[in-house]
């Protein structure tokens, strides 16, 4: 199965159905990365799954896992001709260290290079096309024999990736396998340390995400690790992650003027903004400020003229500002992931314990089915981007029940007459 060339081109008939994919993700929901990878390489389809590695800053984890499963597994590497010498050196280091015997270099078509990038500077004028001929085309050609491929993508890496599953279908219905989907930076670090894996030589000098030399810059402390890629350009993903058929999917337009604030039954213009780096801390009006910054400067803010807002992240302890709630006209509680339910407790404490009666908004990963919970915990405005949830809100079709088994102390829930004890109706 490891021999890609012997296999015929991937036949659509063997494609997974959507439901099979669902089942697959369910099966592996709680399994570790090694099991996902082993299953992908050994059992997933009758067609081999390709292992592609960038030999970048965090490639060592998957490479180490591959070596454990089968050191003779073919590993594809896109030799774009634009790599840092350190990257090529790193390929050799890893081959030796892990005993990988079958790293295959995929190179751009020489006639394409001659035609479109004779001087080797296409990256400057048209990086999408450069990526296309140096990455997408060669990979696309190589992957013809495969039923899919493995990526090292992780949910945390960029915002677009918040819901990355272990297995996905591409637009031509091949399978993409993301064994590290649920990993975060700490997991990677811990794994590297545990197995004593050598870092990419550039990693320690500030390159957290490494691609071709011309398109990679250093990442500053606290920045998204991938922000060093194509810095200053409207490009966050390499085309190969979207679609191997060569059409680079358009990233969603950023900063469009969609109204995202839902309040009093409709989407409305938002009067508020978040504190910007260059804001002075005086006379802030309709500005949300980060929790820690508020704590640090609360005394200076006593005489602030204007409506002050506060951002509460999961992990921020609202008891610390409990006595100050009257200073805020609005508090925004963040839900970076819908599964993180800390914001519900924060909201109830703000409302019920500390008597906050300004606008309490929920922001972040909010889906239809949470809306009722959020309201019951005291939120009265929501910032929502998820399409189906927006539709449901606009059509007043929020999933929910009309009777509740426990009180939450909000006045939208009135005691149901003589009904005993806890129960409430809407």
């Amino acid at each position, binding site marked *: 199965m490891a021999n890609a060339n012997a296999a015929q081109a991937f036949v659509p008939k063997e494609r997974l159905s*959507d*439901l099979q*994919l*669902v*089942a697959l*993700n*369910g*099966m*592996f*929901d*709680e*399994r570790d990365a090694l099991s996902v990878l082993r299953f992908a390489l050994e059992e997933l389809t009758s067609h081999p799954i390709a292992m592609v590695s960038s030999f970048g800053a965090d490639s060592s984890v998957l490479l180490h896992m591959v070596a454990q499963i089968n050191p003779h597994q073919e590993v594809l590497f896109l030799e774009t001709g634009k790599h840092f010498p350190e990257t090529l050196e790193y390929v050799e280091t890893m081959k030796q260290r892990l005993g990988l015997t079958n790293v295959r270099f995929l190179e751009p078509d020489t006639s394409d290079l001659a035609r479109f990038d004779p001087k080797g500077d296409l990256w400057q004028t048209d990086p999408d096309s450069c990526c296309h001929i140096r990455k997408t085309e060669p990979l696309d050609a190589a992957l013809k024999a495969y039923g899919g491929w493995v990526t090292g993508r992780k949910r945390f890496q960029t915002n677009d990736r918040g*819901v990355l*599953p272990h297995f996905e279908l591409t637009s031509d219905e091949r399978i993409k396998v993301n064994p590290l989907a649920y990993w*975060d930076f*700490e997991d990677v670090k811990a794994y590297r340390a545990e197995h004593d894996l050598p870092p990419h030589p550039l990693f320690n000098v500030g390159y957290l995400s490494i691609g071709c030399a011309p398109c990679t810059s250093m990442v500053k402390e606290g920045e998204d690790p991938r922000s060093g890629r194509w810095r200053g350009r409207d490009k966050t993903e390499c085309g190969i992650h979207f679609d191997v058929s060569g059409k680079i999917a358009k990233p969603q337009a950023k900063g469009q003027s969609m109204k995202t604030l839902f309040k009093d039954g409709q989407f409305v213009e938002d009067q508020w903004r978040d504190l910007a780096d260059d804001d002075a801390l005086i006379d802030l009006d309709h500005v949300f400020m980060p929790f820690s910054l508020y704590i640090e400067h609360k005394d200076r803010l006593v005489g602030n003229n204007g409506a002050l807002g506060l951002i509460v992240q*999961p992990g921020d*302890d609202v008891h610390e500002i409990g006595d100050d709630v009257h200073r805020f006209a609005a508090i925004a509680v963040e839900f970076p992931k*819908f*599964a*993180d*339910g*800390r914001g*519900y*407790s*924060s909201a*109830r404490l703000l409302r019920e*314990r500390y008597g906050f009666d300004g606008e309490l908004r929920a922001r972040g990963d909010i*889906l239809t*089915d*949470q809306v*009722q*919970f*959020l309201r*019951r*915990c005291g939120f009265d405005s929501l910032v929502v981007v998820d399409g*189906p949830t927006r539709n449901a809100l606009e059509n007043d079709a929020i*999933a*929910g*029940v*009309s*009777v*509740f*088994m*426990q*009180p*939450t*102390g909000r006045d939208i829930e009135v005691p*149901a007459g003589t*009904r*005993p*004890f*806890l*129960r409430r109706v809407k």
Partner: protein
Amino acid sequence: MYRYDEFDAAFVRERTEQFSDQVKRRVAGELTEDQFRPLRLMNGLYLQLHAYMLRVAVPYGTLNSRQMHKLAHIARTYDRGYGHFTTRQNIQYNWPKLQDVPKILEELAEVEMHAIQTSGNCIRNVTTDQFAGAAHDEIIDPRPVAEIIRQWSSLHPEFSFLPRKFKIAITGAQQDRAAVKFHDIGLMANEKDGQVGWRVFVGGGLGRTPMVAKEINDFVPHEDLLAYLEAILRVYNLHGRRDNKYKARIKILVHETGIEQIREEVEAEFAQLKDGVLTLPQDELDRISTYFAAPPFAADADDVLDAEQHALENAQYAKFLKRNLFKHRQPGYTSITISLKSVGEVPGDASDAQMDAIAELAREFSFDELRVSHEQNLVLPHVKKSDVRAIYERLVEIGLAEGNAGLISDIIACPGLDYCALANARSIPIAQDIAKRFADRENEFGELKVKISGCINACGHHHVGHIGILGVEKKGTELYQITVGGDATEQAAVGNILGRGVTGDEVPDALEKLLNVYMDQRENADEPFLDAFRRLGEAPFKEALYG
């Protein structure tokens, strides 16, 4: 038992409709799996190796005959003719089709059942003693309080996205048959100054880091219980770890923070919540309790088993009488355990015909009541002693008359590699091999709890087996690690690992060696295995196993 009123009925109906709609959206492709997963999990729908699995809640393990008939009907109509009773005192269907799920849920709702909160990171179905309301050693019947906790925790808006799942167990008896010290919160009835209240334990659990719960408060009165639970849950929701799902249970929070500090935080929160909306009024407790009033027992029921003669003639029946009856609080009555561990069968499985027959037994002989035990058996809680023999005969007919409750073949085993996506190794065939090997000698061994899990998640409770068996994987082969000395009762203990794993074929031999040590060295036939182990220590057992 508790009966839905219009309020409960409306709640379940709406929730069922809501989930049915979500399933339809999923089947139609309008929801992605990522959007669907949390929804289906909150509604008891898992994905596993072969198919979806639907978990149906059996609140505190109590069923009536109508409900049991419905479970049988669902097994017959939508599954492959059987259901699987689990250690969570509920029932699981292993083969429902996704498009049938809404229909199944509608059918369940007809008999006041549902699958809400049987999975997902929320407060799960509350579990309790399978003999609640019947046991002779009860300080208080825990079911009214269990019902109140069920209501309070249903779709709790603040606690539906906890760091991890949350399990509460409650017992009102002196002997703990609900393993409360191995739950996130365990409640044990306690008497203080002539009043009954609750000892509260927190942070127990099995899984990859087994822990015995710590006492956080030795007496919480009924009226404050919900406020106290809400305080614990709030502290956990805000401070439980979310960075690593293996460290997200409250046991890790308690372990890492220390019980003293957790107690301080909980008490501070409780001080604010106390005497608020959650205060449980006595009349509400009384009202709920009426649902659980004792059935109309015959005061003059004969207090001897009418079957002595028969038992002499029939060794199987004698064994049944010895093992499967549990002392009832009412003279003339007893509780019967129906073992779902017939030798050679899948532990916990019952066919549709068996379920129907058991429902009829409950209706005729046990005031229409049935229980599911966390040891994966069924119980007829209130049976006249004079009816035992008739019931036995009927159980023989359906192949469920095994008199092995608490014996070596009464094994808890998780689904393992046969059904579970997470498994390292098979559990069910191992249970079957053990039962076959020792069935004819099991009486000699007396009480002996063997528990098997196919992986470290410990669904089979192996940590608390007198003998525990854990499937591990090494270089692609299934191996089994053996532990000795675990105990799920009030003397809670986690078993000691004896040494390296053995292969599946070797497991029965390994057990034989352990049992030989016990038989040779026990003080007398009345010293159970666990006591002997505690007296002897692990050395002789280790020696026997690994030389």
